[in-house]
């Protein structure tokens, strides 16, 4: 594979630059250095399998069936996956036998998606997430060290981003010790920026999809918007990007009614990307209406409010009450004086997922992450 020498990928993602530099070995700094090329043909280098086996550090997803209760469980070589390891002084991360080349990396990702993440018998999903998250991180680490770029890099990153987006929705509301949305977000943003940088050269089949996902996930971000405005004409005018831009415009104009209406048109994954902004959009609607409809004789029908909020009536009523809006049977009374910002602990985003839930229908997780939805 002569590609890596001829077309050196550029260091990317200024935001995560510090972290990524950490993961480079020191010799990388020399201008004429050639990127290491991996030769490991398995998902986990044999040396690591043996080591972790001997130290009883196998994950139970990697253990050979029947040996779980042994003092030292045996590794199932077909299911062991290289784990992420923090770079440290003296640790050589560039040994070719321990690096997986791009085709093996893609196979690894497919295994993680099809046989772990999408496997219904693996429960709880928080544990599945932790495992896949870590192993995907290791895949990215191998890509960084080998300076993989172009379509091979994009294929891996696309699946990573879809997985992390899905997770951000599915695990929303889980206790912090099981799932940390902030950590998920950091890795998601990093992978997304890297992916968008891959797209800056050459043609990519899924570019429209991911430019749109980036705009939705980063709703209202001037940086994401400016980037989108500077995209090539064809990408910018593709329907996913146009829809994402329309949603952003509605957000910038502070028209949550329009935003929530446009959100109906999103597909499942797009809705996952947008979902973390939904609660604040709904809250904003209530704030604007509290001011705009503020009058003594105000009687705003709950059903109508529920419709524009894309919520069921009972949830709409609950949301109102949380924000100090008086609910009177079938009506609410808006008053600018009584609206309160403070979010209640009880009503969380996770209770209001129906808008997103409904879109999943019978899509398999596997198809969602591979993009065959």
């Amino acid at each position, binding site marked *: 594979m002569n590609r890596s020498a001829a077309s050196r990928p*550029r*260091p*990317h993602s*200024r935001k995560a630059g510090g972290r990524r530099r950490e993961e480079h070995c020191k010799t990388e700094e020399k201008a004429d250095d050639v990127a290491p090329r991996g030769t490991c043909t398995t998902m986990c280098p044999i040396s690591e399998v043996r080591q972790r086996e001997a130290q009883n550090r196998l994950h139970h997803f990697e253990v050979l069936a029947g040996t779980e209760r042994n003092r030292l469980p045996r590794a199932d070589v077909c299911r062991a996956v290289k784990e992420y390891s923090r770079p440290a002084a003296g640790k050589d991360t560039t040994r070719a036998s321990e690096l997986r080349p791009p085709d093996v990396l893609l196979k690894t990702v497919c295994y993680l998606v099809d046989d772990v993440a999408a496997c219904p018998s693996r429960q709880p999903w928080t544990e599945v997430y932790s495992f896949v998250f870590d192993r995907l991180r290791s895949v990215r680490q191998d890509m960084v060290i080998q300076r993989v770029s172009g379509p091979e890099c994009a294929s891996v990153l696309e699946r990573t981003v879809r997985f992390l987006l899905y997770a951000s929705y599915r695990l929303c509301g889980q206790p912090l010790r099981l799932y940390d949305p902030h950590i998920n977000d950091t890795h998601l943003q990093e992978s997304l920026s890297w992916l968008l*940088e891959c797209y*800056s*050269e050459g043609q990519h089949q899924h570019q429209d999809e991911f430019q749109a996902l980036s705009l939705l996930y980063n709703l209202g971000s*001037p*940086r994401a*918007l*400016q980037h989108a*405005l*500077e995209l090539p004409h064809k990408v910018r005018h593709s329907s996913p990007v146009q829809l994402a831009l329309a949603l952003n*415009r509605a957000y*910038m*104009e*502070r*028209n*949550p*009614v*329009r935003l929530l*209406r446009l959100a109906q048109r999103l597909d499942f994954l797009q809705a996952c990307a947008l979902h973390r902004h939904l609660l604040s959009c709904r809250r904003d*609607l209530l*704030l*604007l*209406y509290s*001011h*705009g*409809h*503020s*009058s003594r*004789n*105000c*009687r*705003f*029908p709950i059903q*109508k409010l529920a419709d*524009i909020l894309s919520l069921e009536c009972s949830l709409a009523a609950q949301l109102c009450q949380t924000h100090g809006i008086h609910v009177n049977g079938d009506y609410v009374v808006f008053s600018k004086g009584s609206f309160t910002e403070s979010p209640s602990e009880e009503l969380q985003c996770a209770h209001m997922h129906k808008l997103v839930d409904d879109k999943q229908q019978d899509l398999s997780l596997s198809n969602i992450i591979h993009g065959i939805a």
Partner: protein
Amino acid sequence: ERVTALFSQVLEAIDTRDGVFCAELLSFKHPHVANPRLQLSSPEDKCQQVLEPPYDEMVAAHLRCTYAVANHDFVEAYKSFQAHKEENWYVSCSHCLRGQAEQQLQKKGKGKVGDMLEKAAEQLMSCFRVCASDNRAGIDDSKKWGMLFLINQLFKIYFKINKLHLCKPLIRAIDSSNLKDDYSMAQRVTYKYYVGRKAMFDSNFKLAEEYLSFSFQHSHRSCQRNKRLILIYLLPVKMLLGHMPTTQLLKKYDLMQFTDVTKAVSEGNLLLLNEALAKHETFFIRCGIFLILEKLKIITYRNLFKKVYLLLKTHQLPLDAFLVALKMMQVEEVDIDEVQCILANLIYMGHIKGYISHQHQKLVVSKQNPFPPLSSVS
């Protein structure tokens, strides 16, 4: 005159993208520094007339240095400053030169230029720290005088690589400095230009107007280019605050792209606004003001709705009337619910005094000044 000869050498170096030679010209290694006719105390104006930024400032700085050194006024402090940091200063400036040259040569190599600019920024930052922490010398000889120049260079880079948040600590440094009003006007104009743009980005429009206006008013009269550049950012801010530019002004500074936008906003003509934004999209996006101009939509709604109010001559306006107005402006897929939301937002922002009655499907406005003047609304 030797100065013009120097200028033409610098210009030639810039044109031929010879970063190395240019840097050499601006360093103390070149023999011309001994020439008394080049030792000018205030060369800024001459430089601004002949050279484009950032070269004008760099050459001006260089010429000021030659003057100072020749006069022995600043001898020890200044010389040591030059000897110590000169290498870095001019090396990083030549990095910038190369960076900009390369930018023109390879539009594709976005990554590379960004990295070079970041490296240049790092070096400038270290120079800056030396200047900022210079507490030894007396105020006349202090390295602190170099601060604003360096900050302006850093701003330039941060804006180019789109990392505006890095401007904040620099702004704080100047705000807390007792020298801030004593730097040269040229430097202060540049500084306020960038800080004004940053304020725009932070949606702090009143502050942005203050800074950009200062920059515009104090810009050198002969510097049409600079004034035009400042105006590109000042105009949208003023429009958001309700002040429309005259066609005369736009003609004078060759900014006719704004005429339709201005007309559309003042008339409440959403259709024309959308068309105007689309027509000059490339220009607005390149300048980074497209997103801000879109904010003018809210002002346009307000102006349109005011027309509806004036037309119907009543304080209880049917919501349907607004819907009709929007549909006439060919706003896509708008319905009564959205109309309510737009109105609610205008009321929330203080652009309309009144309330919406959902039961009666009406907007009830105050009998007194229901559409307060734009300049009075924050």
